[in-house]
């Protein structure tokens, strides 16, 4: 596996002036993490755990106070390479309304590649293929404000895809969406990862989204608390709960049955796994 993003001993702090004294706030502390090309990584952590700050280091929006971040081998602190980094790593934020700039869907998607100086013909191709990838092609002439939340968020993702990044970082992209919208966005993300090989870094509070990733990284107090496959990470029910996090209800149920002495070997992650196990127990 080839490393795509490498964070080496990254610390990030900022200074807060409180009355007369300067207080240093440490958001990230000596954090090291490697994300491989083509991986789908979910990052979990309570509010204030440092996960959004970490994500902003991946496209040089923030630079480490100490340590280094490399994106595709490029040092993010190299001011001249900022542009190269931003074309490789696209960022999708929580609120789709803050990310849409144009009054027609396809113009919005074209905004990124236009700024990159991509020739007009090539832009046309990219916009069409990006809109098809998120299944919004038939809405290309619509006004974004008339779309549903899930549709808007998919347009925002198309805008990032049109820049042809090798990696997309999504910071709680479904927090404001209804269940259908969440599902649409998640399906889109999975498809981009599987079919186009785009590296995905998904920051989320939803455990059912995290179980779809190849790998789950749990942050706490600016450090990495757990890092592994979803099944492995979610088996640490007690640790997760202690750090203000949740597990999927399916996992919690089986964990609690187990603590009541019911014989359960492997913790389920999804509803269907849980149903199978329960049927075996009840038989």
């Amino acid at each position, binding site marked *: 596996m080839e490393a795509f993003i490498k964070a080496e001993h990254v610390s990030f702090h900022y200074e807060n002036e409180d009355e007369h004294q300067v207080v240093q706030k440490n958001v990230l502390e000596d954090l090291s993490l490697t994300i491989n090309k083509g991986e789908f990584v979910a990052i979990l*952590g*309570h*509010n*204030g755990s440092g996960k959004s700050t970490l994500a902003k280091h991946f496209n040089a929006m923030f630079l480490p106070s100490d340590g280094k971040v490399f994106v595709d081998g490029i040092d993010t602190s190299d001011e001249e390479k900022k542009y190269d980094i931003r074309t490789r790593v696209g960022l999708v934020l*929580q609120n789709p309304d803050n990310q849409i700039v144009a009054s027609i869907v396809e113009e919005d998607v074209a905004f990124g590649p236009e700024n990159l100086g991509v020739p007009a013909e090539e832009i046309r191709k990219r916009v069409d293929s990006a809109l098809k990838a998120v299944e919004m092609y038939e809405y290309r002439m619509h006004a974004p404000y008339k779309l*549903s*939340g*899930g549709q808007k968020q998919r347009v925002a993702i198309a805008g990032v895809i049109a820049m042809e990044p090798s990696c997309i970082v999504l910071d*709680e992209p479904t*927090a*404001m*969406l*209804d*269940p*259908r*919208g*969440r599902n649409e966005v998640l399906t889109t993300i999975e498809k981009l990862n599987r079919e186009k090989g785009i590296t995905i870094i998904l920051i989320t*509070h939803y*455990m*059912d989204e995290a179980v779809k990733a190849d790998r789950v990284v749990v942050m706490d107090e600016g450090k990495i608390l757990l890092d592994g496959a979803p099944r492995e990470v979610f088996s640490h029910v007690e640790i997760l709960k202690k750090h*203000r*996090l*949740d597990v*999927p*209800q*399916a996992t*919690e*149920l089986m964990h*609690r*049955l187990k603590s*009541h002495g*019911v014989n359960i070997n492997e913790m389920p992650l999804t*509803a269907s796994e*849980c*149903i199978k196990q*329960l*049927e075996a*127990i*009840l038989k």
Partner: protein
Amino acid sequence: MNVLETENLRFVYGENTPFEKVAVDNLNISIEKGEFVGIIGHTGSGKSTLVQLFNGLLKPSTGRVLLNDVDIWEKPKEIRKIRFQVGMVFQYPEYQLFEETVYKDISFGPKNMGLSDEEIDKRVRDAAKFVDLKDSLLEKSPFELSGGEKRRAAIAGVLAMDPEVLILDEPTAGLDPMGRDVLLSHIHAYHKTRQNTILLVSHSMEDIARTADRILVMNESKAAMFSNTAEVFSHGKELIEMGLQVPQITRIMMSLREHGYDIKPGILTVEEALQVLLQKIEKEGAAHGS
């Protein structure tokens, strides 16, 4: 007794223009005093329009909204009073904090109601207590608070008006799981103590399952279902067709039921499921003589 009631309520955006859109269509529902009602529906289903009709932010195109049997638009000039009685916490309410101190921000509502300073002070402190904001935070600027604290301060501002009906629109959006739990338990405790009516609009089926007595399901501008929580969540297929979901635990238990196991429909929490399963396992164990 009904606290809120709608009579053939209809609301149309951009009436008589090419953009005309019916957002609430001939709705007849009633909400009893002291109920905790969850409102669900996909984006654009009409639920936000409905709650804005409830507190007089929007005026019905036709039909009426009754608060304690009186049409809220009977005296249009006094509609402000309705907004004190039907308090509304909007999405991301922390963006609306604006005063120099948290105390001043929370007191803004009661001040507008023309209450005495003494009463205002009592209300501010009570409201802060309900959402667990420490006294020491009251003199701080709202901008010094953490995200979760800001959200709670904004909610306290509405609680301080002591509304008879409290409407919360997506109060937990963007909070982490623990923040969500804490806020919901504050709301629950407030409901228990004050015995007032609460309407909670949410996309989180888990939040709704844990708190609501009844659920109003809005779909295509109409009330598709309005029934007790267990009953509504036993209609998984219909909800999914409307772009909604049921809590994962409910889905698991319903599926066992469909596979022939004797399990009651509409199980809403992990705790409830655990008890049902433990009982079944014990029985089976005894029957098998193990």
